[in-house]
C-alpha cells in the first residue's frame, strides 16, 4: 500500500498504511514528551528522562486518587452487590404478583467509575471455570441509543445475555423454527440451557442483572413496556434492574415520571453515592495535604482554584477533577527541562556530556542564585569533574529539603485543621471555615500554599491562649495523638514539637486541683505563643525552597483552554484580526497595530460588513459593500505597487511611460469584465465560508435576505 492522495475529492475516507518499523508490534509509552520551550538548556534525551519522571509522578498521584475514590465507594458498592445477590431470597408471599427488584443508584458525578466497581463484583468474569457458581450474576448493559423502541430495547437486553458465546455454544437453528431475538422466551430458553449445562441448583441460580445507563435519557414508554414484560417472567427469570440515575434521589425521577401501574410492578431500593463539593474537598485534601501520602509534585494554588471553579461552575464529576490533575502534571513536566530531577538525578556520566552543558549551566545558576552568592564568576566551563558530584549532591539535598518542607507543611495544615475543629467542638466560631460565607477548606489550602495564613494562625494562637485549663488539656491530648499517629519519618523530625507538647501536658495542673494559681493560663499563654511560632515556621511558602519549581507547580496557570475553550471567540477573533494569528516574524506588521479594512482577507472584509449590518442582511447590499471595499483594495494595491516601482527604478520607467499607460488602458477595458466576475466569485466564496462557519441563517422570509446570528461587537 502506498500513501493515498489525501486531496482526492472523490473519496471520503482514506487509509494511510503503517509506516513505522514493521517488526515491532509493541505497546507505546515510547511517545516522548513534547520538546520543552527551553530546548536550549535541555539534556539530549531530556524528553525521555522527563517522561519517566512524569509517569512515576502521575501514576503515584492517580493511584492515590483512585484508591481514595474506591474506598469511598466500596461500602455502597458492597451494599448493592449484596442487594443483588439476595434480591430473590426474601420474596414477600401473598402479593398479587411478584415484584421486579430494581436498584436505583443516584450518583450524579461518578457514574462510570462507580458502576465499574459494582459490575466488577457482580459480573461473573470467570464463567468458563468450574468454580463459577459462587458468582452471583450475569450483567448486561443498556444504553439510551439501544432503546429507541421496544423491539430494539428487548433485543439489546436479551442479546446482551445470549450473545456470550463463551458460556454456551451457539446453536444455529433454522430461522423458521427458532425464536426471534427480541422474544423474552429466548432469554428463558437460554437461561434454562445454562442451568442445565452447568447443573446449577435452584438455591444459587445466578441473577440476570440489567444495568440501565443514563436512565433519564431512556424513553419512559419503552421502559414501561420492558418492565411489564419482564415482570411477567419474574418467577422464572431472576432479573434485577440497576438504574443509573443522575438526578437527585428525591424527588425521584422514577416516581415523578413513571405511572403507578409501572411502579407497582417494581420493588425499588435506593442508593446514594457520595458526591459534590465535600467529596472533592476530601479527595484533594487526602491527596495533597495528608501527612501519610507524599505526592511527587505538589499542586499549586492556581490549579487548586481552577479545580474548585470548574467543579462549581461546569462539571462536578470526578472524571473532570482527575483530568485537570492529569493535565497539570503533564504541563508541569513538558515545560521545564529541570523537572527531570523530580525523583532522581542523572549520573555524572550523563551530565558530563558536552550536550549537557547548557543544562548544568542553568542548574548551576539557579542553585547559586538561591544559595549564597559566592564565586559568581564561574560558569559552565568552570564545572569540571570534581564539582559535578557537588552539584549532584546539592540537587539531592534540595530535593530532600523540599520534601521535608512539604511534609512539614502538610503536618502544619493538619494541626491547623485540628485546632480549628477543636474550637468548633467547643462551640467557638474559630476561623469560621464552615460557616456560610466562610472560606472552604480548598481556599484554606490555597492560603496555606500562598503563605497567607499568618493572620489566621495568629488568631488561633490568641484563642488557644484564652483556653481554660481543662480545654487546653483536651486540645493537647488531641495534638499529642495526632503527632503519635504520624508516619515515623515525620514523627522523628518533629521531635521538638512533641517535646513541647509533652512538656505542656505535664505542666498543666491536674484537673482536680482548683485553678487559682494561674498556672494553667500561663501554660496556655506559652503554648499559644509557641503554637503560633511553630505553625508559622512550618507553613512557610514552598517557593522559598531551593529549586522549588521542580516539585511544585506554584502559580503557573492551568491551561484552561484545553478543557474549557472559547471556540466562538477564537473564530470571531480569527476573522476580525487575522494578523494576530500570523507569524510574528514581520517586524513591520507588528508595529502597525490596526490595519485598514481593505488589507484584510475577503472573508474578514465580508464579516466586518456583516457586523455593521442590522438583523437581516440583504445579500445584494452586502455584495455591493463588499465590491466597494475590493475596489478600494485594488486601487490601494496599485498605488502601492506604483510607489514601490517608482521608488526603486523610476528612471527606466519614465521612458516607457506613455506606452505603458496606453497598454494599461486597453487592458483595463478587457479587465473590467473579468474583474466583475472575480469580485462575484470572491463574494460567493467568502459568503459561503461564513455560512459554513454557521454565521448565517437562511430564513427565507424575505427575498435574498439572510439573518445574522452573531452580534459581537468589533471595536
Amino acid at each position: 500500500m502506498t500513501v493515498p492522495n489525501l486531496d482526492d475529492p472523490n473519496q471520503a475516507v482514506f487509509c494511510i498504511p503503517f509506516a513505522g518499523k514493521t517488526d515491532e508490534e509493541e505497546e507505546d509509552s515510547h511517545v516522548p514528551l513534547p520538546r520543552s520551550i527551553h530546548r536550549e538548556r535541555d539534556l539530549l534525551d531530556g524528553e525521555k528522562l522527563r517522561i519517566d519522571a512524569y509517569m512515576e509522578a502521575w501514576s503515584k498521584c492517580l493511584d492515590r486518587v483512585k484508591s481514595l475514590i474506591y474506598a469511598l465507594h466500596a461500602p455502597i458498592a458492597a451494599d448493592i452487590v449484596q442487594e443483588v445477590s439476595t434480591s430473590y431470597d426474601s420474596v414477600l408471599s401473598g402479593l398479587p404478583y411478584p415484584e421486579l427488584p430494581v436498584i436505583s443508584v443516584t450518583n450524579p458525578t461518578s457514574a462510570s467509575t462507580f458502576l465499574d466497581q459494582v459490575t466488577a463484583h457482580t459480573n461473573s468474569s470467570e464463567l468458563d471455570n468450574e468454580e463459577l457458581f459462587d458468582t452471583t450474576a450475569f450483567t448486561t448493559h443498556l444504553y439510551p441509543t439501544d432503546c429507541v423502541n421496544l423491539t430494539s430495547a428487548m433485543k439489546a437486553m436479551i442479546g446482551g445475555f445470549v450473545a456470550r458465546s463463551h458460556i454456551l455454544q451457539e446453536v444455529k437453528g433454522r430461522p423458521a423454527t427458532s425464536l426471534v431475538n427480541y422474544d423474552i422466551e429466548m432469554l428463558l430458553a437460554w437461561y434454562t440451557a445454562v442451568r442445565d449445562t452447568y447443573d446449577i441448583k435452584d438455591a444459587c441460580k445466578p441473577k440476570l442483572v440489567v444495568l440501565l445507563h443514563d436512565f433519564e435519557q431512556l424513553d419512559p414508554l419503552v421502559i414501561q413496556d420492558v418492565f411489564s414484560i419482564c415482570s411477567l417472567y419474574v418467577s422464572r427469570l431472576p432479573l434485577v434492574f440497576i438504574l443509573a440515575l443522575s438526578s437527585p434521589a428525591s424527588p425521584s425521577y422514577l416516581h415523578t415520571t413513571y405511572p403507578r401501574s409501572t411502579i407497582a410492578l417494581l420493588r425499588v431500593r435506593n442508593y446514594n453515592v457520595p458526591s459534590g463539593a465535600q467529596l472533592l474537598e476530601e479527595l484533594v485534601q487526602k491527596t495533597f495535604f495528608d501527612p501519610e501520602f507524599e505526592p511527587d509534585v505538589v499542586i499549586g494554588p492556581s490549579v487548586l482554584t481552577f479545580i474548585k471553579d470548574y467543579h462549581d461552575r461546569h462539571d462536578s464529576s470526578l472524571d473532570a477533577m482527575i483530568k485537570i490533575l492529569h493535565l497539570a502534571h503533564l504541563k508541569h513536566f513538558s515545560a521545564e527541562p529541570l523537572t527531570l530531577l523530580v525523583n532522581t538525578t542523572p549520573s555524572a556520566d550523563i551530565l558530563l556530556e558536552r550536550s549537557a552543558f547548557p543544562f548544568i549551566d542553568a542548574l548551576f545558576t539557579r542553585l547559586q542564585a538561591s544559595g549564597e552568592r559566592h564565586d559568581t564568576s564561574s560558569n559552565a566551563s568552570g564545572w569540571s569533574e570534581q564539582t559535578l558530584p557537588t552539584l549532584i549532591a546539592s540537587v539531592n539535598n534540595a530535593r530532600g529539603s523540599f520534601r521535608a518542607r512539604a511534609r512539614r507543611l502538610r503536618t502544619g495544615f493538619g494541626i491547623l485543621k485540628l485546632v480549628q475543629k477543636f474550637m468548633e467542638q467547643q462551640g467557638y466560631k474559630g476561623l469560621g471555615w464552615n460557616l456560610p460565607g466562610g472560606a472552604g477548606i480548598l481556599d484554606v489550602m490555597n492560603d496555606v500554599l500562598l503563605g497567607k495564613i499568618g493572620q489566621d494562625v495568629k488568631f488561633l494562637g490568641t484563642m488557644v491562649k484564652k483556653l481554660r485549663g481543662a480545654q487546653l488539656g483536651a486540645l493537647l491530648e488531641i495534638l499529642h495523638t495526632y503527632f503519635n499517629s504520624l508516619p515515623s519519618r515525620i514523627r522523628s523530625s518533629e521531635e521538638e514539637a512533641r517535646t513541647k507538647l509533652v512538656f505542656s501536658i505535664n505542666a498543666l495542673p491536674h484537673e482536680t486541683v482548683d485553678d487559682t494559681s494561674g498556672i494553667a493560663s500561663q501554660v496556655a499563654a506559652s503554648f499559644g505563643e509557641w503554637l503560633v511560632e511553630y505553625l508559622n515556621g512550618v507553613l512557610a511558602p514552598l517557593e522559598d525552597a531551593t529549586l522549588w519549581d521542580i516539585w511544585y507547580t506554584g502559580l503557573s496557570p492551568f491551561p484552561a483552554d484545553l478543557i474549557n475553550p472559547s471556540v466562538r471567540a477564537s473564530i470571531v477573533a480569527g476573522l476580525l484580526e487575522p494578523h494576530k494569528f500570523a507569524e510574528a516574524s514581520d517586524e513591520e506588521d507588528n508595529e502597525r497595530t490596526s490595519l485598514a479594512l481593505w488589507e484584510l482577507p475577503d472573508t474578514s472584509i465580508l464579516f466586518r460588513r456583516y457586523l455593521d449590518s442590522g438583523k437581516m442582511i440583504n445579500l445584494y447590499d452586502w455584495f455591493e459593500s463588499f465590491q466597494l471595499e475590493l475596489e478600494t483594495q485594488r486601487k490601494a494595491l496599485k498605488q502601492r505597487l506604483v510607489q514601490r516601482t517608482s521608488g526603486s527604478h523610476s528612471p527606466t520607467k519614465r521612458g516607457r511611460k506613455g506606452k505603458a499607460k496606453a497598454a494599461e488602458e486597453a487592458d483595463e477595458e478587457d479587465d473590467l469584465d473579468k474583474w466583475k466576475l472575480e469580485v462575484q466569485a470572491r463574494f460567493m466564496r467568502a459568503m459561503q465560508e461564513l455560512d459554513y462557519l454557521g454565521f448565517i441563517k437562511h430564513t427565507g422570509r424575505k427575498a435574498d435576505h439572510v439573518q445574522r446570528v452573531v452580534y459581537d461587537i468589533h471595536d
Partner: protein
Amino acid sequence: MRRFGDDQDMSSDGDEVIEETEEELEEEEESGPEDFLTTTPSRGKRRRAAEEDNHNIIVQTAFDAYFTHATTRSRTSASVFSSLVPPLAAEEYAEAIASASKRQPSLPPIQASVLSESTRDLLFSRFMRELSEGFNLLMYGFGSKRRILNDFASTYCAKAGHVVVANAFHPDFSLKDLLSSIERAVPALPAAEGQGHTPEAQARRIHDFFAAPGPKRHLYLIIHNIDSAPLRTARAKSLLALLALTPRIHIVASIDHINAPLLWSTSECAARKPDPPLSSSLSHSHAHSHSPSPSPDDTHTHTRGEPRRGFAWLWHDLTTLEPYDFELAYVDRTSISGAHGGGPRKKADLSALQGAGGAAAMTETAALHILASVTQKAQKLFVLIGSTQLASIEDSGAGAAAGVGERERERERDLQQFGMGYDTLFTQARDNFIATNDTALRSLLGEFRDHGLVVSEQGTAGVGEVLWIPLRKERLASVLSSLKVDG
C-alpha cells in the same frame, strides 16, 4: 455615560471628522435608534453610522446589540441579488478564483503561526503525547484545518500505527464508510463471520479488538469536521463515543461551526479512557477492581465488561486562516444557501450533483456535449422536457410575484418540483412522434440518465416517477436556445 476619551481618539485619526462629530452628537439625540441602522448608506453616511455606534452606549456588548437589532426593523434595500446578478457557472467561478489568486498586485498572504515549521513540530509532538495519554483531540479556530491535520496524520500518526482519515464534510460520507475503512485498514481485525454488518456490530467488533489486551498497533482516526451532518446524529455519536474511549484508538477531529461545541455534554467531554494498568497499580491492593486485570485467555469477558462511552476531548486552537476551498468544493457555488451545513441533506441537490458522476454539478457545456452526441429524437425529447420545465418555473414565478426571491430560492434548492411526471411525458412524446412506446422512451431517456442530464425520482403519492433536468433556469434556457439554433 458617553466616553469622551473615545471622541478624541476617533477624531484624531479622521480628517474632517472633527467638525462632523459635533453635529452628530446632536443629531443622535434627536433621532430614533433606527436611524443608524440603515444599511447601504453612502460612504459619508456609513462613517457617520460607525461614529454613532462608537458613541452610543447601547451598542457596547453583543447582548445589547442583539436586543437593539431585534427591537428595530432593519431596513434593507429591495434589490434582489439573484435577479440582479446572474449566477456564475462552475467554470466561470473556477476561472475567476484562479485569476484572483494570480492577480498582481495582491495582498501578501497571511501565514498563520501554527503553520510554520518550527511550531508545527512542537505542536505535533505535543499532540502525540496527549493522544498517548488517553485523550482525544479536537481542533477549533478559523481556517481549514484539513491540510495540517493530514500532515500530522502522514508524518506522525502513520509512524505510530494505522491511520484512517475521514473527510466528514464530503457529501458522500457516512459513518459506515469510516467503519468499513477501519476494517480494511486493520488487517488483523477478525472478519465479520455473518454476525451482522450494521454499523453497531462493526463498531463493537472494532472496539473489542482494540480493547482486548495484548500488543497491537494503535489506530489513529483523523476526522475532518466531526461537526458535519452525518456525524451529528445520536446514533453516530454513540458509536463514535464507543470508539473514542477504546484504548489504542485515538481520535483527532476538527470542528468549524461556531456552535459545534454544543454537540457534546460536559460528562462526555470529561469522560476518561480506562486507565492502562500502571505498573505500580498492579501491585496495589485495589487494582483489580478498577481495571479487571486481564489474564491472557479471557479476552471476551474483559471486553464484555462495561465499555465506557464519551470523548475525553482536549481542545486546541488551531487557527490556520486557510481558505475552506476543499471543504466547499462540493457546494454549488451559484447557490446562496449551498454551503449551509445544518439540517437534513438535500437529496434532490445531491442526486443532481452525483448524477454527473463526480463532484461537479451539471454545467452548460457538459449538457451541450451530451446533447451533441445523441440522436435527433433524443434531442427533441430533451427540448420537450426542458421547455415544460421552463414553463412551469415561469408559471410559479408569475403566480406569486410578491415572493419572487423565495420562489427563486426554492427553485434553486429543489428543481424536482418542476419536474414532469413520466406518464405525462410519455403522452406528450407519443403525440410529438418522439417515441411510440414505453420501451423506446425509456431507451431515449437512458442516455440522459447515464450522464445525469435527466434525473428521476419516485414522486409523492400518486404521481409516479418524476423527471427533471438539474439545470437552473437561466442555464436551461440558454441550452434550449442553442439547441434550437442548431436544429
